[in-house]
C-alpha cells in the first residue's frame, strides 16, 4: 500500500472512530445544548462585546504598548503618609 493511501485510511479510521463515538453517546442532548450555549456566550458575546483586550485593541505596536505601560508604572511619586505610629 502506498504511504499516502495508508495515511488516508488512518485519517478515515480516526474520523469514523469519533463519529461513531459521538453517535453512541448516551449523555443526552441537554448536556451538549448547555455546552454549546456556554461556548457561544463566552466567545460570541462576552469576548466580543464585554472583554476587548485593552492593549491589543488600543495600540498598534508593542513599542506603543510598552510606552503606555511604562507611563502607568512611573507616576509622580507621592510623599509617603508615614503618620502611622511605629513601635
Amino acid at each position: 500500500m502506498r504511504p499516502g493511501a495508508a495515511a488516508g485510511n488512518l485519517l478515515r479510521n480516526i474520523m469514523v472512530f469519533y463519529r461513531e463515538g459521538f453517535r453512541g453517546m448516551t449523555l443526552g442532548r441537554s448536556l451538549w445544548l448547555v455546552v454549546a450555549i456556554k461556548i457561544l456566550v463566552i466567545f460570541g458575546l462576552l469576548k466580543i462585546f464585554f472583554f476587548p483586550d485593552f492593549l491589543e485593541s488600543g495600540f498598534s505596536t508593542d513599542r506603543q504598548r510598552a510606552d503606555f505601560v511604562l507611563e502607568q508604572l512611573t507616576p509622580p511619586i507621592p510623599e509617603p503618609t508615614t503618620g502611622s505610629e511605629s513601635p
Partner: protein
Amino acid sequence: MIENLDPTMVDWARAQFALTAMYHWIFVPLTLGLTWFIAYCHTISYRTGNEEWKRLTRFWMRLFAVNFAVGVATGIILEFEFGTNWSNYSWMVGDIFGAPLAIEGLFAFFLESTFFAVMFFGWDRVSRRFHLVSTWMVALGSNLSAVWILVANAWMQHPAGQEFNPDTARFEMNSFRDIVFSPVAVAKFTHTASSSMVLSAFFVISVSSWYLLKGRHRTMARRSIVLASVFCLLSSLFVIFTGDQSAYAVAQKQPMKLAACEGLLRGQTGADLIAIGVVKDDHDIRDDKQVTRLNIGIPELLSYLANRNFKSFVPGVRDMVYGNPEQNLLGAKQKMVKGRTALAALAAYRSDRQAGDEAGAAAARDTLRANQDYIGYGYLEKPEDAVPPIALSFYSFHFMVILGTLFPVVSVLFLLVAWRNTFEKHRGLLRVGTILLIPGMIAHWLGWIVAEVGRQPWAIQDLLPVNVAATRLSSGSVRATFFLFLFLFTVLLIAEVGIMLKQISIGPEEG
C-alpha cells in the same frame, strides 16, 4: 495615570476574578482527582475482566465526562479578564507566562483531546491495553496541564527566575528551572493535586451514599465507597504533609501572609500555632494589642512550621510593617523608600533614554537594579498598606485546616463501615456522606482565598500591587460585567447540576 485609578474599579475587578475563579474551580479539582480514581478502577477492570468493575468504571467515566463537558471553557473567561481588567499586569508577565501556558495548551490539546476520545469511545473499539493506557494518559495529561497553570500562579506568589526589562516594561525569564521548581510552585501543585483527589473521593462517596440510602446499585456503591475511602485516606494524609510544605514555603517567601493567617501581630520566639481563635472586630495593627482573642494555641508549633525549629523567631505583622532591627528585618516603611528610589530610577531611565543620555540611563538602570526587589513598595501610600485583610485570611486558613484535619477521620469511618458492610446500621453516616462534597469544595475555595487574599496588596509579590496591575476602566463597566457573570454562572450552574443529578439518577445500568 495610576493616581487617577478608581479604587472601586480594582475591587470590582478582583471580585469578578474571584467569582469566575470560584466557578471555574468547581470543575477543575473534580477533573484532576476523579481521573486517577477512574484510571484505578479501569485497571482493576482490565486485570480481573470482571463485568461489575467495568460497569463501575464506565459509570464514573460518564460522570467525569459530564463534569468535563460542563466545565469546558470556563477558564478562558479568566484570560479575557486579564486582557481587559488587568492589562498592565498582562503586559508585564507575558514573557514569563508565555512558556508555561504554551506547554499547558499543548498538553491540553494533544493529551486530553486525543486520549479523552479514546477513553470515552474506546470500549470494545480499541485494544484493551491501549484503552487502559489512554485512561492513564488522561489522568497524567490533566494533572500535567494543571502543573503549568499552578506554576504561573506560584510565580505571582514568589517571582523567581526573572529580570525586569525597563525598556519593554516586561518581566523576562532568566531561569525556567527556577520558575518551574520554585518551592512555592512545587508545594502549590502537590497540595492542589492531592486535595483534588480528596474532593473527588468525596464526590464518589456522596453519590454512592445516596445510592445506598435509596437501596440502589448496592454492590457498585459499596465497592466505590471502599475504593474512594482508601483514596481519601491516603490523599488526605498527603494533603496534611503538602499543607505543611506549603506553610513552610509561605513562611519563607511570604511571611506577611503567614502572620496574617495566624493573626500574629508581634513576632515571637517559640511562637504558638493558634488552633482556634477569634479576630477582634476593631483590630488595628497600630495598636500594640493582640489581633485575636479566645485563642487556643499549640505551643511552639508555628515556629516549627515556619522554620523547622521550635525555638525560632517568627516575624509578626508589625515587624514587617515597621521593621525589626534586632531580627535584621526590613519593614515596609524602609522598603517604601527603596521602592520609590527604584521608581524614580525607572522614570529617570526613560527620560534619559529619550534624551539620548546613555550614561545617565546606565546610572539610572544600576540604581533600578539595586532597588528593584522592592519596586512595588514604591506605590504604597503608607506602610500599613502592605498588610492583607487579617480577618479573612485568618478565618479562611483556620477553617481550611480544621476541615482538612477532619477529612482523614471521615474517610476512616467510611472505610470501616464499608469494610464491615454495615451501612444498613449506619444510615446517619450515609446521610453525612451525601453532603461530603460541600465541605470538600468549601475547603478548596478557602485554600484559594488564603493564597490570593493573603498575598494582598500584591498582584506580583513585592513587585506589583493590584491597583497598578489594573486597567483604568470605570468601575461601572466592571460592576456591570460582575453582575452579568453572577447571573450567567448561576443559570449555568443550575443547568449543569441538573444534568449531573439526572445522570446520577439514571445510574450505571444505562451506561
